[in-house]
């Protein structure tokens, strides 16, 4: 098989085209958001919100409302409950997060088990990339475009919020609004990525790309390019691998993301465990040669 056929053959199936468009869109939107999440220290929050949207999505399905609406409501509900448990008891934040999101996730699973449905709602949990319909794809594209636009237009404000919220206050901005906006976008992004990899694996797309980019550059503006490019490549690679190896597509995408992170962790020229030493040895050799 020549390489071009290798790339084109899967695309002769409509379902593969939809899967590719869905996964690349989800990968890009998640990756851009992940740049802020890893810097603010909200990785666990990303995990929590992406799981906690499940009952919201199921209830939205039941009443025929947009998934995004249910997701955003339950996303904020999760954050509010976490805040209440942390602030009004001796429970620390990580425990509060663990209690709230697993309980809401469990509620989602129970709701799924009692909801008669045409489509298998279990697909929300593990994703069903190969079963994405044109309508699903349209929803992913629209939500993805909205989320990405807001993130990119307000990127400097979000970065200021992440870096120095006190300064944001001092120049008359409202950091609470910026934080809430990020959380709302997190819930929307979770909906976008549900189709691709499912609730359980969304968090990988929300953390790994930003973390990988952070190991490669000292400029936030470059992270916003590196993370989505890396994540889109991982999505494409993972999908093709799953096609030819006949493995789970969502899981394969996340595996590729994890492998890219591992390579960067080892070989990043400035931050990599091995790459840093190689760079130092090269400089020494150059000094010795002079």
């Amino acid at each position, binding site marked *: 098989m020549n390489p071009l056929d290798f790339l084109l053959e899967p695309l002769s199936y409509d379902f593969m085209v939809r899967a590719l468009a869905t996964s690349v869109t989800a990968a890009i939107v998640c990756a851009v958001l992940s740049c802020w999440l890893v*810097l603010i220290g909200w990785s666990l929050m990303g995990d929590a919100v992406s799981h906690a949207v499940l009952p919201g999505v199921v209830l939205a399905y039941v009443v025929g409302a947009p998934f995004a609406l249910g997701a955003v409501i339950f996303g904020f509900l999760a954050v509010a409950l976490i805040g209440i448990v942390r602030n009004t008891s001796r429970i620390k934040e990580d425990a509060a997060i663990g209690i709230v999101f697993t309980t809401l996730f469990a509620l989602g699973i129970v709701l799924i088990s009692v909801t008669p449905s045409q489509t298998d709602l279990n697909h929300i949990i593990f994703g069903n990339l190969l079963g994405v319909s044109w309508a699903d794809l349209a929803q992913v594209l629209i939500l993805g475009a909205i989320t990405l636009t807001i993130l990119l237009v307000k990127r400097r404000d979000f970065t200021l919020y992440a870096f120095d919220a*006190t300064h944001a206050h*001092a120049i*008359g901005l409202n950091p609470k609004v910026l934080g809430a906006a990020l959380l709302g976008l997190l819930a929307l992004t979770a909906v976008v990525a549900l189709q691709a990899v499912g609730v359980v694996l969304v968090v990988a797309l929300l953390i790994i790309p930003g973390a990988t980019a952070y190991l490669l550059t000292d400029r936030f503006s*470059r992270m916003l390019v590196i993370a989505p490019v890396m994540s889109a490549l991982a999505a494409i690679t993972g999908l093709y691998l799953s096609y030819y190896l006949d493995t789970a597509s969502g899981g394969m995408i996340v595996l590729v993301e994890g492998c890219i992170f591992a390579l960067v962790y080892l070989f990043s020229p400035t931050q990599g465990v091995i790459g840093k030493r190689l760079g130092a040895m090269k400089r020494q050799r150059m000094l010795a040669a002079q």
Partner: protein
Amino acid sequence: MSAPAIEVRNVTVHYGDVLALDNVSLSLAPGRIYGLIGMNGSGKSTLFKTITGMLRPDHGTVTLAGQQPALARKAGAVGYVPQSEDVDWAFPLSVRDVVMMGRYGHMGIARRPKAADKAAVAEALARVELTDLADRQIGQLSGGQKKRAFVARGIAQGATILLLDEPFAGVDKRSEGTITKLLRELAAEGATVLVSTHDLNALPKLADEAILLMRTVLLQSTPAEVLKPENLARAFGLDVTVGDAE
């Protein structure tokens, strides 16, 4: 005497049941440097947070640059230099990026820098002598340079009120001298500078006036007067003399 730049009147702040500021009143004039001293937990940070708008006082009022505090902040009057331990120094931003954040209040919704913003940032960087280091990641500066970068952010912003939270912690003596000189210049141009510090020895050189805080203002006077052992003892609760405090 001109109208005060910072006017704090009968401000009380609680954290839950804990009283952090108790009926604090202060009046700070333009063109002067004020040293804020007190123990850990005396309310120094709380006072800063009240002025920057992080905290809303339970009682009392704050007036900044003769305006409602929210208006003064929106106009860019308040510059803030955070404590070192409150900053994530590994954050992927250059020195120039950080100084540019001082201009955000003057920009449109997407905060896209215009020529005037870039010029103001370049000027501020030159002013604090960091032009050559402008493209370094912020954590790759020395302790003193880091402080100057944040002062440059206030300059680029056009702040007339500059708040510095422990700017001399972890900074060597020479850098402390450079920063002090810079602050004196800014005050001479009309800025009001409020500096919290543990370095009592350097206070007379730095500040025109000192404020002794212990949840409430114990004393606002010349540094020499505030540094008298009997006055320090009131704030620190034990017999402290200049030279061995902290």
